[in-house]
């Protein structure tokens, strides 16, 4: 008889591990917040007691709202316990030139997306209004420090689309508590000493340092950059991407607010530097700031000086008191995420600079994909693995091309870093083709060749026109659609004015949520 995958062991207790555990358990072992008996899956998470998780401030995509709701965590609890705040998109400063240019990549889709593709109709107005401002109320509302919703807006509902900024360590703790207390995930704190295989090459057991043998049908590797199962045990080849995206180092620190009521930015601010960029993420109690850079182009000392300068310009005077942390990483990913009966999720499968906060989004995608394959007969493991690996590879290609796009369109010439980024040998061939095409047409859904994409055409439009790409205006716009687009531009301006009056200050709303909570409906 064909065995169906029932026992699942997750290795690693960071955000990736607990998020995966919670998603699988919520999808298969719970209904409306109640545990099903007997459970469909037996889920065990093994966490080494001596490994600290990375835990820098992180950004999520709007998909995290749906994920949290699905696993049954109240948004109020999440915001309050993870020092979390609302993220409405990213602001890119000095990416095009190094003289105070700025553009916005909002989380909301262009107005009227369901009715028409509005982008070509904006081209004639490019001198008057930025693309993102023409099609979304979000950039200006964000600049005005306003939240994406009101205190009376139900949990996980929005007025303007949003994800989160969060403290990854606290987030991981909340997920752990929820997964173990509410979702029946079994938690083992042990160091893995040995991994044994079956005759067919599948992993049979994990043996812990104290000799306990743990067996399962499916092993999920969430061990972070150590990649214990996929990388170390199976030696699946790693595909380095440093020749495309050079950044391999980061200096990170936590910056307290100078006043308890200081404004909390509701977008990630990403400021380009001579050989990298600085992230600035506003949590409730502090900012998370870091400089991610290319060690081939910049020494740690130079990176620190540039970060110091950034901090001074943003009003931080005493930087000596702050706790600096240096991180190094190998940009790239394994050539597959699923090998035999082992699936790697999170940094165990790959990592790249956090320019568009794709890390947690990819964890969500992987866990969702895997969850949708279950229950899976063991005989179909290879087939399911092959399909997930294809999608995994496609996603990594898209992430790399999309991140690279941010650099390729830059006109900065203050450092070899930016020249090297525009060197055609460093640009994936498909991206070179797209950039050529986009001189004549706007980025559209057809340019992104598969469904189930991480970045929709709108994201390319926001970046490409934020970076002032000069697409030729169309000579053949239909008058009726020109009129429809004009109405949508006017509607966007109206919506923005209305929302500017109705939306609360971002920090005020977060404070109010601490006091009253968000209504569940």
């Amino acid at each position: 008889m064909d065995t169906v995958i029932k026992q699942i062991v997750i290795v690693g207790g960071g955000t990736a591990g607990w998020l995966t555990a919670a998603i699988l358990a919520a999808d298969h072992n719970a209904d409306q917040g109640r545990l099903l008996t007997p459970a469909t899956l037996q889920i065990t998470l093994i966490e080494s007691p001596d490994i600290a998780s990375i835990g820098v401030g992180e950004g999520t995509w709007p998909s995290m709202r749906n994920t949290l709701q699905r696993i049954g965590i109240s948004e109020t609890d999440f915001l309050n316990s993870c020092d979390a705040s609302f993220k409405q998109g990213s602001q890119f400063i000095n990416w095009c030139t190094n003289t105070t240019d700025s553009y916005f990549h909002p989380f909301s889709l262009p107005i009227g997306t369901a009715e028409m593709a509005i982008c070509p109709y904006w081209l004639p107005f490019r001198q008057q209004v930025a693309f993102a401002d023409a099609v979304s109320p979000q950039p200006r509302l964000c600049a005005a420090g306003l939240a994406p919703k009101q205190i009376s807006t139900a949990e996980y509902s929005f007025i303007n689309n949003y994800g989160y900024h969060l403290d990854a360590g606290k987030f991981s703790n909340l997920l752990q508590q929820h997964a173990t207390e509410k979702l029946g995930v079994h938690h083992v704190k042990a160091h893995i000493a040995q991994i044994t295989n079956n005759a067919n090459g599948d992993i049979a057991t994990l043996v812990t340092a104290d000799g306990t043998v743990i067996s399962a049908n499916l092993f999920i590797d969430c061990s972070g950059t150590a990649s214990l199962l996929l990388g170390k045990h199976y030696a699946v080849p790693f595909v380095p991407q440093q020749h495309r995206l050079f950044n391999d180092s980061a200096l990170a620190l936590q910056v307290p607010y100078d006043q308890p009521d200081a404004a909390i930015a509701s977008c990630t601010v990403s400021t380009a530097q001579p050989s990298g960029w600085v992230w600035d993420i506003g949590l409730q109690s502090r900012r998370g700031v870091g400089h991610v850079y290319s060690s081939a182009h910049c020494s740690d000392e130079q990176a620190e000086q540039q970060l110091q300068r950034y901090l001074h310009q943003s009003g931080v005077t005493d930087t000596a008191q702050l706790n600096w942390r240096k991180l190094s990483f190998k940009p790239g990913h394994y050539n597959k995420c699923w090998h035999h009966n082992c699936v790697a999720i999170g940094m165990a499968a790959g990592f790249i600079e956090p320019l568009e906060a794709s890390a947690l989004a990819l964890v969500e995608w992987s866990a969702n994909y895997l969850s949708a394959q279950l229950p899976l007969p063991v005989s179909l493991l290879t087939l399911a693995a092959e399909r997930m690996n294809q999608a995994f590879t496609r996603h990594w290609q898209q992430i790399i091309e999309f991140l690279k796009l941010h650099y390729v369109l830059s006109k900065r010439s203050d450092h070899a870093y930016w020249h090297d980024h525009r060197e055609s040998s460093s640009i994936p061939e498909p991206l070179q083709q797209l950039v050529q095409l986009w001189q004549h047409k706007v980025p559209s859904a057809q340019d992104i060749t598969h469904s189930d994409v991480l970045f929709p055409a709108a994201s390319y439009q926001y970046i490409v026109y934020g970076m002032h790409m000069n697409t030729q205006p169309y000579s053949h716009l239909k008058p009726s659609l020109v009129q429809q687009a004009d109405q949508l531009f006017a509607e966007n301006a109206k919506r923005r004015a209305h929302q500017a009056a109705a939306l609360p200050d971002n920090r005020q709303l977060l404070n109010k949520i601490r006091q009253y909570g968000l209504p569940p409906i």
Partner: protein
Amino acid sequence: MSKHVLLNSVEHLDLKIITSRGAEFGDNVWFTPTFPQEFRSVQAHYPIFFHKDAATGQFFSVAVFGFTHQENLFLQDNNWQGYYLPLTVRRHPFLIGKQAVVEDGVEHIQHMIHLDLDSPRVNKEQGEALFLPLGGSSPYLDDVSAMLQTIHQGLQDNTAFIDLLLQHKLLESFTLDIQLDDGSKHQMMGFYTINEDSLAALPAEVLAQLHNQGYLEAIYMAIASQSNIRSLLRLKNQLNASTVA
């Protein structure tokens, strides 16, 4: 505007309160907060719905008097006769204010009667006197004091009631589509009501819990009160007809 002050028999000895009803006194309200202990009286005349306070996002139980802002269909010819007056309407111009009092070195929060001096009900000529000539409180003021106490406890109890409704997913939003005699169609949004499917599916132990706290009765009162939408429609049609005529 309003100017809230702590009531006292020295400064406010001569004040009187107009207790008649009228738009000029601010009675032209669309709805007012209510609470389970009052549901029995309220449901005899008005629909009871649930509404989120815009400032806190918290749910209130409300008695509804009209279909739109500043519309109180029960207030006719500046009269609001023959109907039960919800306490949160009757309380004006008084409110409860919290005050920290130190007693034997320990701080207590006391609830004291406050008065809105800017209310058009407050004057020195007509209405109910607040104090007896020598400074003792009038029977009217004693009534007010008891009423404020009831409201205070009622709203606290309402919070517990709402928490249980939310916990058991017993609230749902609804949109009221109405058509008036003149053929015009209107929509009323932003209110919530009891989700009767969730109610019907409640396990026995939850029903027992709701019953023991007196909330099961309140839930059915709220459901029954929905038939009062017909009274609102009738009043609205009458009002329209009289304006046309």
